[in-house]
């Protein structure tokens, strides 16, 4: 028997929350919709109630492709509910307190970001150059706060071709009066010598203090380590997840399709087709500059075969803790080993 909680659809609620307020992050939205579920729940017994919440969080997790930060929120809330379920005197009042607590969490979640921003500001030195990756609300907020505090610094932001988050970041930062340059994802190594620190957000922070973030963070961390530059991660503590990945392929977002090699004969055919165009283009318009020819072929490649391979490209990667200098969280500035301590406190 499944629990169809009176035509209340958690997933739809979650999605509408995200659409209505773009500043909301995934775990907070997840908790908010779980609270909404409690409100609608007609469960009469404890176990029915718990099952319905578990069921709903499972549904939420499977509804999106990249569920890492979402599951952090769901797990935190589930943990909170189970922990409080022992001393229930009256079921209805207990449900009410859960709803109140959940509400206040959503309110506090915003304050978290401000707290982190304040803590991170002293790390940004006057006259420094900061490299950031894609778009992260909390990183943008931190940099905005630093600018408000009259720090003068410049920002390089990677374009992050998959989501175009870098362009979004650049807009926000430029509006705050911070000189910002968008660079190619492939140019991280090129600019690293001009950079004083690297700052990234997080989808999730895992048990060993490692980081799950938008694809490209890992290589950025490696480059930063090689160049001896500090690599700081910025994350709200509700993004801490109970995962212990040992490599990139341990993440729950990884599946057999990710970066799989395509069927050889199919691929080979399309390649041949492409090669034909490549050889023809320069002869047909030999007067055209080499750069236009290049961009034409690049465009052509994109239309013919990219569709399929884009779909199987990973969205996130895992950065092991030894590449991370410090984590700025609302619990304070932590070393990567401090993260596991916080998680143990919660799940002990």
């Amino acid at each position, binding site marked *: 028997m499944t629990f169809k909680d009176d035509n209340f659809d958690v997933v739809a609620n979650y999605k509408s929350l995200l659409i209505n307020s773009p500043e909301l992050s995934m775990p907070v939205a997840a908790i908010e919709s779980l609270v909404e579920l409690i409100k609608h729940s007609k469960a009469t017994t404890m176990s029915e109630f718990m099952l319905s919440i578990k069921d709903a969080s499972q549904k939420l997790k499977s509804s999106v492709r990249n569920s890492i930060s979402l599951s952090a929120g769901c797990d935190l809330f589930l943990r909170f509910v189970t922990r409080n379920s022992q001393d229930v005197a009256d079921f209805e009042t207990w449900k009410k307190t859960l709803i109140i607590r959940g509400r206040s969490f959503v309110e506090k979640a915003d304050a978290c970001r401000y707290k982190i921003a304040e803590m991170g500001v002293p790390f940004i030195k006057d006259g420094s150059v900061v490299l950031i990756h894609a778009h992260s609300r909390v990183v943008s907020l931190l940099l905005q706060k630093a600018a408000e505090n009259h720090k003068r610094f410049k920002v390089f932001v990677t374009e992050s071709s998959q989501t175009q988050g870098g362009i979004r970041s650049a807009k926000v930062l430029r509006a705050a009066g911070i000189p910002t340059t968008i660079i190619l994802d492939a140019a991280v190594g090129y600019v690293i010598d001009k950079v004083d620190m690297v700052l990234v957000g997080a989808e999730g922070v895992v048990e060993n203090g490692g980081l799950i973030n938008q694809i490209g963070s890992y290589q950025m961390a490696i480059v930063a380590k090689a160049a001896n530059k500090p690599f700081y991660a910025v994350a709200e503590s509700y993004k801490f997840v109970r995962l212990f990945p040992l490599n990139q392929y341990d993440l729950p977002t990884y599946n057999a399709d990710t970066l799989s090699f395509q069927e050889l004969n199919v691929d080979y055919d399309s390649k041949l087709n492409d090669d034909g165009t490549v050889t023809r283009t320069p002869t047909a318009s030999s007067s055209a500059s080499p750069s236009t020819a290049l961009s034409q072929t690049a465009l052509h490649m994109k239309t013919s075969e990219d569709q399929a391979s884009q779909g199987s490209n990973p969205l996130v990667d895992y950065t092991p803790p030894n590449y991370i200098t410090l984590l700025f969280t609302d619990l304070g500035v932590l070393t990567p080993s401090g993260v596991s301590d916080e998680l143990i*406190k919660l799940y002990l």
Partner: protein
Amino acid sequence: MSKNNEMVDDLVAKLKRRQLVGSSTVAQATLRLLIVVISKSNWTTCNQLLTLVKSVGQRLITANPTELAVGNIIRRVLHVIREEFREAESSASNQNQSEFHSAPLTTSSSMYNLLGETGSTPDDNVQYPSSLRSNIIQEIREIKDELENIYDNIKNQASLQIHSNEIIMTIGRSKTVEEFLKMAAVKRKFQVLVAESAPSYSGQEMALELSKAGIETTVIPDSAVFAVMSRVNKVILGTHAVLANGGLVAISGTHMMAAAAKHHSIPVVVCTGLYKLSPLYPYDEDSFNVTFNPDSVLGFEEGDLIEKVTVTNPYYDYVSPDFVNLFITNQGGHPPSYLYRLIVENYDPNDHTFDL
């Protein structure tokens, strides 16, 4: 009250004029002052006392911001005060409303608090037992005892760290390292190389003290550190302060020695009392440094040269935590990655900065 102010002014002046230097002396002076301030002033609530201690602390810290031990001691005392008040409060509320309030499962900063109730600020209306004042003073005296016996706890670990016929290298003069090596010399025979630590030459004094204790000691110039490093078994360092990430603020030349040790994969051990552990982070590498009189680098005798060059004499180095393998503290040996834990245990997260 005015008597208290006089004492605070006195210590502030001494810190400003650098009549009082060295983390150990500064820490003890701070603690003595705080005991007097707390026992002689009027306060009834937790917030009053916290504000009082914080305001004294603020003045001492601004007097000499590079003596991080002052801030550490004040944070320790604030932590003790909070704990005592919390205890007094819970025992008071226990009498009133039995077992409804279960003991908090976690320390104050935790993810769980995000969902749980907002951290309860100490209630000002509770009637505190009269023993509270003496309890707090008692706890602070315990910190004082700890400070006085700090070398004993550190040096007891000496024979575990130093083995027979080893060659140890150190730099500068550190009372902690001196005691540590002397203790080891009681049981073991080993050799010590001391970098002379120009321009203060405190390494020479260190070497003299060690050789008086019968340890085979050699002074080497600072520039020879790398050259002899390959023969060394262990580098043992003292430090002025330990920062929250495990970085050191130590006498200049330490960074060079630690880097040379890392190049040869030689373990670097730092001996330090926990009162030197600060919850602050090295926001930038010069933030806790001081520059001294450059006379010892380039004296006035060199008149015409002095006009043409800038001479600086930084006293400290910042050494990043990846150069350190082990901290020997009065609470045992810890790797740099564990220091955050000690900070959580010893200081309240609200006290990392003194916002009144």
